């Protein structure tokens, strides 16, 4: 650790190996003339309160807007399912449907519109808008309507067939003008034969939460802190505690306020839904008797308050009243959510507060200025990496906490959140062997730990082969005055130059049992042909050979380059001292190679760990998946089994293993240190 401070004499002040922006580095001693602790903490409390109140206010208003929209959606769903029920009773098509729709419109809120589609003959059976001229055949620009109906039909059939409810049977789409467009299937005798579409009047925008309580939540911590600061003076620890307390006071107040607002909203909403269910039920019963529609099965209006899968939400009793027990439970859940969100925001703000209060923000700024030249040198490369590598990386990690798969790609990730479940599934499966049908224990090759073991062995053997062969050849090629060196060099890098897609497959062909040259060579020397891909060990050998062949040229080139950094004078001096060739190698060559070779080894460990092509093309996991490595396994989960979340978790585990290795290796070799 003798880093020279060529241009930056001031860099000596930083302790060696100090790490960059950490959240809370140990407080440096306050330099003379720095602002007082009280002032810093006061600024901290102000900023933190602003952040916490601002964010909470935003969260609250979004939650209220969301709740208002959800309420409108629920009421609209009730109206839509009620209409679908009537259309079914009216037989799905014909005059009865048109009468039912007309009657439905009379009780519907002003501005509500509806259409009824029958799939037979692509017909617009009825519409509240007389200008559409129903009944008639659907026109070409109404194709989306028909496709939507077919989608609902497929959804109902799929849910029934798979006996897993996963496809939406009621579609709700918010329109640009603020209204809602709903579609529900019309099911006759167990078959979806048509669709109803309902367009609600414009949804009223939800009221913003009062700014008075937000102001109070902002003011409260400030006042509290000033009062405490007066008492405490310039005591750092005391001030830190006081600031924390003040912040907690503000958060506590706003949490109480938010919970009461949300709970009140929910209670009112469920009453409103219950109300609309009762109204719809009444209208339905009246229509049934007036139009002479079949009254069997009886109307179960509470089932109209359903989710997108047409499953009743369960808030209402059969009579259409709010079920108090269910409501209390849901309200408790809602307030729990509010509190959790606010606590998360508060923790963030607290971090900010302490960072400002303890002075690390200022220190960070000073560091950036002092070392601006070094940062300027690194920044271009780092920015490119940030944009193109780290975004996909965080995308992958986010995905790993979800149950995202092919069948639910259209749903937002927040709905698919499963927390650590994927990781638990992967890591807690210790089922390394299982009992086969004939009672024998056989290894379970798809188990994570088996694959991990294979991967580790694969990586170690490959890197050892690659480095030793590459280094050996580089040393030989570095011999002074050796004839034909350029020719050897060019021939030896050919495996790197040629696309490995074809050479990998050539290698696979060379290991063929009947027609492969490897077995022919064995036969030449009287050996028996080997069925290379029949046992895990021989199959592994084929991949190892191929990858060793593919990877040594790279190591050779790196070593050749590194060998140039050794001044010849060193050897001369050593020889004068009477060192043997081996001693020279140990004492001069190897240490001089280290700075270039160590990063090459670390990176080739990483690349070999994730070497997809060779395994995929040469062994393809044969036999029975025993020679898969983690990366090919994760590929299978993503692209054969379509389990994106699970595959992402697999990838993240791979990443974690490599990260641990990287940190460990770095500690041991001090590769990041200057020599």
């Amino acid at each position: 650790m003798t880093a020279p401070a060529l241009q930056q004499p001031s860099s000596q002040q930083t302790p060696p190996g100090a790490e960059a922006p950490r959240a809370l580095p140990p407080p440096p001693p306050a330099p003379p003339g720095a602002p007082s602790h009280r002032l810093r903490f006061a600024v901290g409390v102000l900023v933190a309160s602003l952040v916490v109140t601002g964010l909470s206010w935003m969260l609250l208003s979004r939650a209220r807007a969301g709740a208002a929209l959800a309420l409108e959606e629920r009421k609209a769903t009730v109206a839509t399912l009620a209409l679908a029920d009537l259309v079914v009773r009216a037989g799905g098509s014909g005059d009865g449907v048109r009468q039912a729709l007309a009657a439905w419109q009379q009780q519907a809120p002003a501005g509500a519109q509806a259409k009824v589609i029958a799939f037979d003959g692509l017909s617009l059976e009825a519409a509240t808008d007389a200008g559409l001229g129903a009944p008639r055949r659907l026109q070409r620009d109404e194709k989306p309507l028909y496709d939507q109906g077919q989608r609902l039909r497929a959804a109902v059939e799929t849910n029934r067939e798979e006996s897993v409810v996963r496809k939406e049977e009621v579609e709700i789409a918010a329109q640009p003008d603020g209204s809602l467009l709903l579609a529900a299937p019309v099911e006759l005798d167990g078959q979806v034969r048509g669709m109803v579409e309902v367009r609600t009047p414009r949804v009223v925008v939800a009221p913003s939460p009062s700014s008075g309580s937000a102001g109070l939540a902002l003011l409260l911590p400030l006042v509290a802190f000033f009062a405490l600061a007066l008492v405490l003076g310039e005591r750092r620890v005391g001030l830190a505690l006081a600031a924390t307390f003040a912040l907690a006071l503000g958060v506590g107040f706003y949490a109480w306020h938010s919970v009461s607002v949300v709970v009140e909203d929910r209670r009112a909403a469920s009453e409103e839904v219950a109300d609309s269910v009762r109204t719809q039920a009444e209208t339905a019963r009246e229509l049934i008797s007036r139009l002479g529609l079949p009254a069997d099965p009886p109307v179960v209006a509470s089932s109209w308050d359903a989710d997108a899968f047409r499953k009743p939400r369960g808030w209402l009793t059969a009579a259409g009243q709010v079920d108090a027990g269910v409501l209390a439970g849901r309200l408790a859940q809602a307030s729990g959510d509010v509190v959790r969100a606010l606590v998360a925001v508060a923790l963030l703000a607290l971090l900010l507060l302490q960072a400002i209060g303890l002075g690390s923000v200022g220190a960070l700024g000073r560091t950036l200025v002092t070392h601006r030249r070094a940062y300027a040198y690194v920044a271009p490369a780092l920015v490119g990496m940030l944009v193109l590598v780290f975004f996909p990386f965080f995308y992958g990690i986010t995905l790993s906490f979800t149950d995202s798969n092919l069948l639910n790609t259209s749903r937002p990730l927040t709905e698919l959140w499963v927390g650590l479940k994927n990781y638990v599934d992967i890591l807690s499966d210790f089922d390394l062997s299982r009992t086969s049908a004939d009672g024998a224990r056989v290894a379970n090759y798809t188990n994570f730990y088996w694959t991990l073991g294979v991967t580790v062995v694969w990586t170690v053997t490959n890197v050892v082969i690659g480095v030793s062969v590459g280094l050996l050849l580089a040393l030989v090629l570095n011999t002074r005055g050796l004839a034909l060196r350029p020719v050897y060099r060019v021939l030896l890098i050919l495996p790197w130059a040629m696309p490995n897609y074809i050479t990998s497959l050539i290698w696979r062909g060379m290991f063929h049992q009947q027609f492969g040259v490897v077995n022919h060579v064995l036969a030449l020397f009287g050996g028996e042909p080997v069925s290379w891909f029949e046992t895990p060990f021989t199959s592994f050998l084929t991949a190892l050979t191929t990858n060793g062949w593919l990877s040594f040229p790279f190591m050779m080139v790196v070593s050749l380059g590194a060998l140039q950094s050794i001044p010849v004078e060193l050897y001369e001096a050593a020889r004068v001292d009477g060192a043997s060739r081996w001693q020279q190698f140990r004492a001069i060559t190897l240490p001089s190679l280290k700075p270039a070779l160590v990063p090459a080894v670390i990176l080739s460990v990483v690349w070999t760990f994730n070497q997809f092509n060779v395994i995929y093309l040469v062994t393809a996991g044969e036999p029975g998946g025993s020679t898969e490595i983690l990366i090919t396994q994760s590929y299978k989960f993503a692209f054969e089994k379509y389990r994106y979340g699970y595959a992402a978790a697999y990838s993240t585990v791979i990443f974690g293993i490599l990260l641990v290795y990287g940190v460990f290796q770095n500690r041991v070799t001090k590769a990041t240190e200057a020599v």
Partner: protein
Amino acid sequence: MSAAPGERIPHWPLHVLLVVAVVLTIYPILWVVTIAFSGNQSLAISTLPEDPTFWDRLRAITPWPQTFSVSNFTSVMTEQPFGRWILNSAIVSLATTVVGVFLACTAGYAFSRFNFPGRRTGMMAFLVSQMFPGTLMLIPLYIILVQWLGLGSSHIGLVLVYATTAIPFCVWMLKGYFDTIPKDLEEAALLDGASSGQIFWRIILPLARPAVAVTALFSFMTGWNEFILAATFMDQELMYTAPVGLRFFVGGYSQQWGYFAAGSIIVSIPVVALFLFLQKYLVSGLTAGSVKG
């Protein structure tokens, strides 16, 4: 076997070793050559006549086509705009090399010569970026490059991706090499009044030529053989790169290995040419006289 000059080591064992290594190395490649010149489309298999003699067996394992034909080469070059695709590949890979090596040189220099907070974290960050497997990267990369940056169907997009893929290795490699260059050189130059830019360009980089050559070759190869991103991001046939063109021959059911082999040979020629060009830098490191002590 060390590089010590003036020592009398007999050269013939080294030649034996190298010849064996070369034979093992080029043997599979000779099969590629055999397929390419066979005029046929099938991968070679080696079969034996009844009651094979030693020579029959030897013939079976010798990569030599039964008939000679250059038809695979002519078809590859004429049926598709393969020349154009190789040119595209060359442009993309050379740009990748320039961008990658330049960014890596500056970053590697900073990591080697400056001690600043975040140095180790920064170096780890470069390393870490290689650790996340690329299985699920295609879609997010597509979102960034095509949707956000609007770089779909442009070679710039490819260059950016390839360069960021190549940079971590280049940074580490160069940093390691810079570390071996004695600091007294720079300190002497500093005393002579050279600016830090001058020191970097005039003193450090020329001394690091072997490492720059290695990283250049590596960056070039990163772009040269990449297939899936090039095929996904390019929306015009004339923008494709050579690996994309090659894969047309073996995709799906139809597998024309003769064409693929011929194309592979054509594609590896520029790499060999580049290596020949870089060779002299690879073996011209610190020479006596440039270093004091």
